[in-house]
């Protein structure tokens, strides 16, 4: 009786673990499909990823992804497959190549240029002699308008 119980338990666990394994495999596939389809633009509704889109083409392409993931193709192979047909535009992250150099490097070039300008401006400002608040010309003008400065008063305020 006991052995029968043991056997039935063994058989049962064998079945269930089998089932669990198949399930994890499945969810891994699903996760890969999900990750891939988030990198891919739906060409029908261009501001949606393949994962978000319900366009018929998006469904077909997701089916393609599923088939290819199940067939054991790598992510790069699958993305290549799509790029060959729909062009780089299908990728949300454009590849780094001659035509996209400006796109990838441009912001850093701009940043560097801005930093250079900033440094140059700061240096020039520091090097420039500080202008006197009032030149002799200005002083003369002030005196002409306000009359000559009265020294006693100024002394008084200084003390």
């Amino acid at each position, binding site marked *: 009786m006991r052995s029968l119980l043991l056997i039935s338990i063994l058989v049962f666990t064998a079945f269930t673990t089998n089932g669990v394994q198949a399930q994890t495999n499945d969810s891994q596939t699903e996760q890969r499909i999900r990750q891939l389809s988030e990198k891919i633009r739906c*060409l*029908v509704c*261009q501001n949606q990823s393949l994962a978000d889109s319900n366009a*018929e*083409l998006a469904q*077909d*392409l997701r089916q*393609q992804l599923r088939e290819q993931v199940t067939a054991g193709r790598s992510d790069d192979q699958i993305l290549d497959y799509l*790029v*060959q*047909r*729909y*062009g*780089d*535009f299908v990728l949300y992250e454009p590849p780094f190549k001659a035509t996209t150099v400006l796109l990838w490097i441009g912001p850093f070039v701009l940043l560097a240029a801005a930093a250079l300008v900033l440094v140059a401006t700061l240096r020039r400002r520091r090097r420039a002699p500080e202008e006197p608040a009032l030149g002799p010309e200005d002083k003369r003008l002030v005196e002409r308008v306000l009359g000559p400065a009265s020294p006693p008063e100024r002394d008084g305020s200084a003390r």
Partner: protein
Amino acid sequence: MKRFLWPLAIFILLVGFLAVGLRLDPREVPSPLVGRPAPAFELPVLHQPDKRFVPGDMRGKVWLLNVWASWCVSCRDEHPLLVELSKKGILPILGLNYKDKGEDAQRWLKQFGDPYQLSVVDADGRIGIDYGVYGVPETYLIDAEGVIRYKQIGPLTMAILEQKVLPLAKALRK
């Protein structure tokens, strides 16, 4: 004075970029297939389902492959132009009936005229994916060696036909 000219120059440059950007059509995705051999397929012919067609059958000819479907509204706009073109007999037109039902497709052709030398049936849209189809109608100009030379996304117009497709086809035939 010079320090005010700089921002102005940058502003004008920016406006220039934006003006060009606004005129571009985001739906016109450059196809990587132009200049490459047309993807192979073997599909049943719409009117003779037991017969099969491969693009190799058109080798030696310059031809148009037009992707259409009876459910596609802009195909209806384009169709009279194709019918007219087929009457002139300048360029053989073949149809790729994309994700359609056989009866619907045949009824549609009966109603609007059949400009196609033949139509092949891509019922599940698989070949469409190989051709990078994402908005029916699409039209491919394929040369004698089976290389795609031009791709039109969306309906053909008289202007596109006269300015791009036909001159290119003429040049390719030489």
